[in-house]
Each structure stands twice: as C-alpha cells, then as structure tokens.
C-alpha cells in the first residue's frame, strides 16, 4: 500500500507553515542548532527583542515547581540594532519562516519597532508580546485590558501589512474580550497564551525563589488552563490560534489542536528535551496516520461536545 502523503501544513494568519510546531519565544535560540535541525520546524521564533539593550531581572531567574517552572528573566536583550545586524541574518540561513517577537515599553515603541523589523524581507511575521508578566509592576501587562490591546494592535497594524501574531496573557478574567479586541484591531492570529503569574518561596531562607518576586509559570502544570482558554477563544474568534503553554508531547499538541489551535508553540519542553519539537512533529504524524487524517484541518477545533457520550464499557 502506498503511504499517503500527510499534509501537515497550516496557515497561521497569512504565514503558511510546513507543520504546526514552533518554539515559544524565550525558550529557544541559536544554542540549540547543534541538537536539532531548525529546518524541520514550522517556524522560528527567537527571544522577544526590546528596542534598547537591557540586562534583565536579578537572579535567581528561574525555579522549579511541581509540574512546572517559574521564570522571570525580564527580557534580557541585546537591543534592536544587534537583532537587525546579527539575529535576523543568523536565522536567514534556515528555510523555516522567521517570526520576530517584539516586546516594548509603550504602544508607540511597539509601532516603531514593528515598522523597522517588518521591513526586513526575511521576517515572515511579527509576534507582539503584550503579555509578559515580568516587566511592569505587579505583573501588569498591556494585554490585561481589551482597550489597551485594541489600541496597541491597531497602531502596529497601521505600520505594517505583515502578519501579526498577538500573544495574549492568561492572567485575565475574560480572555474572550481581549481576543476580540485584538481581532478587531487587525491581528492575524492569536497566541494563547503566555504564562500565568506565579510565585514560590523558599521556606528555609524565607526568600522568594525568584529575584523579581513573581514570574511566569510554564510547563505541564498550566496546560489545562491553556486548553480551556484556547477553547474559549475559539468560541468567539475566527482567527487562527497558536496554542502555547505546557506542550510537552504530541498528545498535548493534538489536544490543543482539538480545542481549536491551528499550531502550537513549545517552550519549557525544549529544556527538558531539546529534541521535543521534533518528537512532537513525528508524534502528530503518527497520530494522523493512525486516525487516517488527510490534513490537520480535520483536527483543528475537532473536539466533540454534544450530549452523546461514548459508552465507557461495552
């Protein structure tokens, strides 16, 4: 029997990617190129870049929790110039599309940086990190308000036609309203989501385990929260969703796709196993074969919610 050719391609809002697996910003970088072949990935997303070089937060910057980790790196960055001169050219050697994640201090700065970076031909799309819980006081982020989200995306939309991925924060009462704000302001796809704000304390030193006191929780622990948010966003928005948060295995990726994601980002799993993204791609492929799926379209948003339940035993 001839092996069917599997279509792993998906469109994430104007960017066609060969498969639905890409790294999560900040948990991927040049250091991994000896371990995996970057060309096998759906897209490449380096760490969020800021306009000016910045040192990031004080140590310790990461700690483990049960089933997860907290980080508060604080976007250590070499600044926009280095990014243009070194980072983008480095990624140009790969055929997988480059998506630039941008972090900024103000709406104006987001627009300014977006305009500059979007003008580089090799940049396929921009990801607006409006959700980083580390930068502002007490975890405040642009993405916590639907109005600010609208204004921000709207301003960036004015300066570029390149696809805009907007990375939402999970730390909100109503993610649907934020998603709709981003959508109506012209976002092309939504990354659901960044990290829940979290904290851990060493009970012997009595000090927070993170120098910045609070940080973002990532890893398997948060997946059920993210799956729920993907499902909620899918209910109200027709934009492609990129699931992000706790994807460790292909099962996790498939679960997010069933909930409504067109693709997934993988962060913490890279630290546990740098080949995780490749394993996930292969695992999705195997699942497609086993379930005789011809394209990922048959999977995306495919969760069955009816009143009919499988009999649990015959």
């Amino acid at each position, binding site marked *: 029997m001839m092996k069917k050719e599997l279509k792993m391609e998906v469109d994430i809002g104007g960017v066609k990617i060969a498969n639905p697996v890409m790294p999560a910003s900040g948990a991927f970088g040049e*250091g991994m190129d*000896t371990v995996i072949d970057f060309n096998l990935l759906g897209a490449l997303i380096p760490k969020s870049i800021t306009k000016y070089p910045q040192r990031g937060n004080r*140590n310790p910057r990461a700690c483990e929790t049960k089933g997860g980790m907290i980080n508060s790196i604080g976007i250590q960055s070499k600044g926009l110039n280095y990014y243009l001169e070194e980072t983008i050219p480095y990624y140009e050697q790969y055929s997988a599309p480059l998506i630039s994640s941008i972090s900024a201090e103000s709406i104006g700065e987001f627009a300014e940086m977006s305009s500059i970076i979007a003008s580089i031909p090799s940049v396929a799309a921009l990801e607006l990190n409006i959700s980083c819980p580390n930068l502002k006081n007490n975890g405040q982020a642009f993405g916590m308000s639907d109005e600010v989200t609208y204004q921000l995306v709207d301003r960036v939309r004015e300066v570029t036609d390149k696809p805009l991925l907007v990375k939402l924060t999970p730390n909100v009462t109503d993610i649907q309203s934020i998603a709709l704000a981003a959508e109506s302001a012209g976002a092309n796809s939504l990354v659901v989501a960044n990290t829940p704000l979290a904290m851990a304390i060493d009970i012997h030193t009595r000090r927070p385990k993170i120098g910045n006191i609070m940080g973002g929780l990532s890893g398997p622990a948060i997946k059920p929260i993210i799956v729920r948010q993907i499902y909620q966003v899918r209910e109200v928005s027709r934009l492609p969703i990129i699931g992000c948060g706790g994807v460790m295995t292909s099962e996790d990726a498939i679960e997010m796709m069933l909930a409504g994601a067109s693709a997934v980002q993988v962060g913490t799993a890279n630290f546990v196993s740098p080949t995780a993204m490749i394993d996930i791609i292969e695992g999705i492929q195997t699942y497609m074969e086993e379930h005789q799926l011809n394209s990922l379209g048959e999977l995306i948003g495919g969760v069955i919610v009816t009143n009919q339940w499988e009999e649990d035993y015959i």
Partner: protein
Amino acid sequence: MKDYNLTVLSNRQVSSRYWHMILDSSIIEEDIEPGQFFNIKSTVHQTYYPLLRRPFSIYLINDDALEFLYKVEGAGTKQLTTYQPGEKVNILGPAGVPFSIKKDCKKMLLLARGVGIATLAALSQKAAQMNIDIYAILSARKQDDLLATKTMEKYCKNVYCVTEEDGTSDVENVREIMHDLIETHHIDAAYTCGSKRLSMLLQKMTKANGITSQVALEEYMACGMGVCYSCVCDVKRQGVIHTVRSCEDGPVFPLEEVVFQ
C-alpha cells in the same frame, strides 16, 4: 553539544553524601574538556519530577568513560542514584567553555570547595598529563565531604585539605596556605570552583601577585544551552559590566572579570 543516551557502567555511593557515576561515552565523538559540563536528565520516566535537567561538571574523562561525582541534594540527585548499570541515561553536552591552560604553564594552584572538587579534579587530570606541578587546596565541611582526594593526590604535587570539622577551613587559614604556596613556588595559573568566598579571596590574591586565574561558576540553570538566560552572572570587561550566560559564555571565566555580588 548533542543529546546522548549513554549506558551506565557504574553508579555507586562513595561517601555519606556523594555518589560516583561512570558512563560509557564511546559514542561521543566531540572533544570533552575539563570545566565543561553535561546536563543530565535525572529521570527516565515522564513524571516531570523533577522537571528540569541537572548540570554536572565532568569529573574524569577516560578513553571511553565519562565520570561524574555528585552530591545528593534534592529530588534530582536522589533520582540520579537510582540508575543501575546497564540502564541508559540521557545527557546533553558537552556544554560550556572549558578551562584553558597556557602552554608554558609549569605550576598551577587549585582551590576547590565541596562539589567544586569534582570540577577541578578533571583539570588536574589534564594538567598532570601536561606535566604541570599542581598544588591543590580542598575545602569542605567535613572530612567525609572531601571527595576525590585520592584522585587529586595522584595528579597533584601537594594536596592540602581543610574542613570546618577540623577548624582549618576559615578564609584566614586558606589565605595563609595560598600565601605560602605563592611565596614558595612560582605559580603560573590558579583555578577555583565551589565557593564564592574563596573565589573572592583568590581573585584578590592572584590580582596582587599577577597570576592568571579562572573560576568555574555554578549558577542555577534551566536550559543549559544558552537560550533561556536563567544562569547569568556579571562580568566586567574594559570597565563595562556585561550580564552573561554561565552555561554558554562560561561556566569558566577569567577570575578577574567576575563581579561577585
């Protein structure tokens, strides 16, 4: 750096808190140098407990065997002890910048504390092969924590052991031993690992005496591949402070550059 599944040749307890693991490294073709480390997956299961890998310096490198000496601290190292000979352990490396030894180095001073002894043991192994005279000061809380003294004695001209238990490990005493060594021998280079306080002491003394020195830092690492910026430390180069990654830009740094907070 690559992802390897190596076979455990031996994994044994060597003192009350330390274990010694030997892996079959015959499949590794890359060079492995003292000061580098491997990021070891402490569990084979998908329990995600602990979630992250654990970094360990190379303790000894032989033809087809890679050795680690590790202290049982928490969940990760506890899990490590459960590996049985014959089992595979997933390790990522070799990672990081190794120690460098100048060709004309004749005499070197090693100052190690605690698990830092493991890190400098690898260096002593290499330096001995280069016929360098090595003077080592090993510090620990208890005699029982003075691991690898046998190994060190094999490679070193002189090994000085100090402990809290014996009341010999205070900075003053260590300073005196070092002072004597520096006075007596023409020390070309000094290396340290395992203690901030001792590193600062060595920093001062080598600066005063114009001795090249290096330190291997042990910052908390999440990725160990230079991508996450968890493991940073500050170095001062030409008067400018840079926040650099100890996993990729280190863990070995020129001692005079490191800014200890």
